[in-house]
């Protein structure tokens, strides 16, 4: 066991500045309104830095800088941009431990996860899009022997990106890497819950980018997010969050006739067919870990497997084992490398989870383990901790239908394949799903029948850069990851060229 020292204390691998302004045009710029807000760590509830409170004037300044930088960045070769992305990846890898600790302190998630998942995935994401942009080619269509249609990829220009707080650096990377690879300049607003780690990241890589290619405006959604999302000066808005804000952003975009990509969450089913328990082997062990993935990142994942559907033939045995596995989760200081579950990202998030545990109990859901706030003491006393919770109930209950965004899984049984598909698809959302079976045919048919953008089959919570990620139904519009993401940050330019000297003959 080892524990990282808290940022800013003696022996810490990194420290935050006491204040962060906006990063605009390659320099720190104080907020036009002169105001700052405190940024607490969820680990102990104590503020560790203060952040510029952005307003429309700051957004305009960032857009000015982005528009100044965009033509130059768009004119660089794919090879030059790929080199910059690779250098960012290298710099992150060299500082991986520092970034991981910064992210844990900012978000409350265990450093065990940031070291092994968040940061390595972010590094790989930059490398993936460095490769993808060099491999991307336009097309040509030979219309007839004298006429050719050429298709070029061109950047959109200046794009707006609004980042969520659950994976502050990784979600910023998902949006930044394809946008930069495609040749766009960016104005990015981090979540007000987690505004600091992106600035620490920028402090490590700022020298690698031309000024103005990435601009960071901090602040609240109502004060900084709204002027950014509603600006006629952005060519596209990318947002990860929830449905009402998603609709609002589409509404703003419709006023300016701009495209959006939206990732709005889900209530993902994780389905365990009877044959999972046919053997006591590695696969069963893996499936039980797959069940327990609801606690990854404290359940603050858009694809949290928050509904577990277990076939009735092995229901009790599998669930008993799942409860036992869940009770082995180590909760504690996120900076301890043994800790598996840390703190929820904010006090209001904690309160929301507790409110859902309450309505779950009223609706008759049975608590199999957890079910309450975890009162940790000592240096963690002010932090926002919830015990990993398994609820048993029925799919019509609100705890089965709404995203709690906490370490809470709602479990129910199913009779057969048809019943499983009916329950799995009885939801407003369709972002992720898990299917666990030893039968390849069942796995294939279930994967195709579930109305969700990502169906993990005999695995869960893997996020490789070259697998498309995005939602069906109310879970959003568009995709992230994969080479296809470049299309969301590019225009298609068609040159339709005639090589014939002969007139058409109309006039």
């Amino acid at each position, binding site marked *: 066991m080892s524990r990282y020292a808290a940022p800013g204390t003696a022996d810490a691998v990194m420290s935050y500045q006491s204040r962060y302004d906006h990063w605009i045009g390659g320099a720190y710029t104080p907020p036009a309104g002169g105001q700052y*807000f405190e940024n*607490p760590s969820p680990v102990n509830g104590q503020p560790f830095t203060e952040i510029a*409170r952005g307003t429309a004037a700051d957004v305009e300044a960032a857009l000015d800088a982005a528009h100044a930088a965009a033509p130059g960045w768009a004119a660089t070769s794919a090879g030059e941009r790929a080199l910059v992305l690779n250098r960012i990846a290298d710099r992150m890898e060299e500082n991986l431990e520092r970034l991981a600790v910064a992210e844990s302190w900012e978000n409350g998630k265990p450093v065990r996860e940031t070291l092994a998942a968040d940061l390595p995935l972010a590094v790989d994401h930059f490398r993936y899009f460095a490769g993808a942009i060099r491999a991307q080619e336009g097309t040509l269509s030979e219309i007839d022997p004298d006429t050719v249609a050429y298709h070029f990829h061109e950047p959109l220009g200046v794009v707006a990106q609004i980042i*969520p*707080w*659950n994976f502050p650096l990784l979600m910023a990377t998902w949006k930044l890497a394809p946008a930069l690879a495609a040749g766009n300049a960016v104005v990015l607003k981090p*979540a*007000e*819950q987690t505004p600091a780690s992106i600035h620490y990241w920028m402090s490590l890589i700022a020298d690698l980018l031309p000024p103005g290619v990435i601009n960071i405006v901090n602040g*609240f*959604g*109502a*004060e900084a*997010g*709204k002027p950014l*999302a509603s600006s006629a000066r952005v060519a596209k808005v990318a947002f*990860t*969050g*929830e*449905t*009402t*804000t*998603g*609709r*609002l952003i589409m*509404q703003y975009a419709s006023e300016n006739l701009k495209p959006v990509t939206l*990732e*709005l*969450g*889900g209530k993902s089913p994780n389905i365990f067919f009877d044959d999972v328990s046919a053997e006591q082997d590695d696969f069963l062990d893996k499936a039980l870990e797959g069940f327990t993935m609801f606690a990854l990142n404290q359940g*603050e*994942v*858009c694809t949290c497997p928050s509904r577990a559907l277990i076939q009735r033939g092995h229901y009790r045995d599998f669930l008993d084992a799942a409860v036992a596995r869940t009770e082995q989760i180590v909760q504690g200081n996120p900076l301890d490398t043994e800790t598996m579950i840390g703190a929820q990202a*904010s*006090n*209001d*998030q904690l*309160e*929301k989870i507790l*409110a*859902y545990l*309450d*309505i779950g109990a*009223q*609706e008759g859901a049975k608590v199999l383990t957890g079910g309450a706030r975890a009162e940790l003491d000592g240096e963690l006393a002010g932090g926002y901790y919830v015990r990993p919770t398994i609820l048993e109930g029925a799919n*019509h209950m*609100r705890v089965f*239908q*709404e*995203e*709690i*965004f906490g370490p809470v899984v709602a479990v129910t049984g199913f009779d057969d394949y048809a019943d499983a598909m009916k329950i799995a698809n009885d939801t*407003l*959302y369709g972002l992720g799903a898990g299917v666990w079976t030893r039968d390849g045919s069942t796995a294939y048919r279930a994967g195709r029948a579930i109305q969700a953008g990502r169906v993990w089959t005999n695995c869960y919570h893997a996020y490789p850069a070259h697998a498309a990620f995005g939602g069906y139904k*109310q*879970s959003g519009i568009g995709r992230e990851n994969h080479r296809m993401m470049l299309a969301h940050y590019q225009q298609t330019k068609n040159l339709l060229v005639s090589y014939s000297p002969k007139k058409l003959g109309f006039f």
Partner: protein
Amino acid sequence: MSRVELTDAAGELLARLTALHGPLMFHQSGGCCDGSSPMCYPRGDFRTGASDVLLGELTAPGVPEPVRFWMSASQYAYWSHTHLTVDVVPGRGGGFSVEAPEGVRFLIRSRLLTDEELRTLEAEDNPEDNPGDEQGEASRTDRAAPSTGPRPD
């Protein structure tokens, strides 16, 4: 009888926010991050439409005009058996909701509607229906479209 109400603390916050932003509205969010919580906007900022349901009009001291509480009809289909109370807790951020800069966050607390309450609400929602036509039990898990029709906000 209402489907949604305010705590005193939420009412006091609405009064302060109304002084800052003018008349307000709520739209209940779903989905990840700041979802599953009510979003508070200057009235008319968020355009409701035929896919939304008006759950109630909230009043509080110091809030001159009722604050309408909306939800998408598809979400309401899963929520209609519960009574909602808008509360407020210390918090940090929440989409574009106007209370976030004040260091607080609106929060929904829920309780089950009783069969009696459901009958009363259904009678109020469907004044043309026979009030003696009791459907209380069935409506506990009723997924039918709610009868409170949309109104532009």
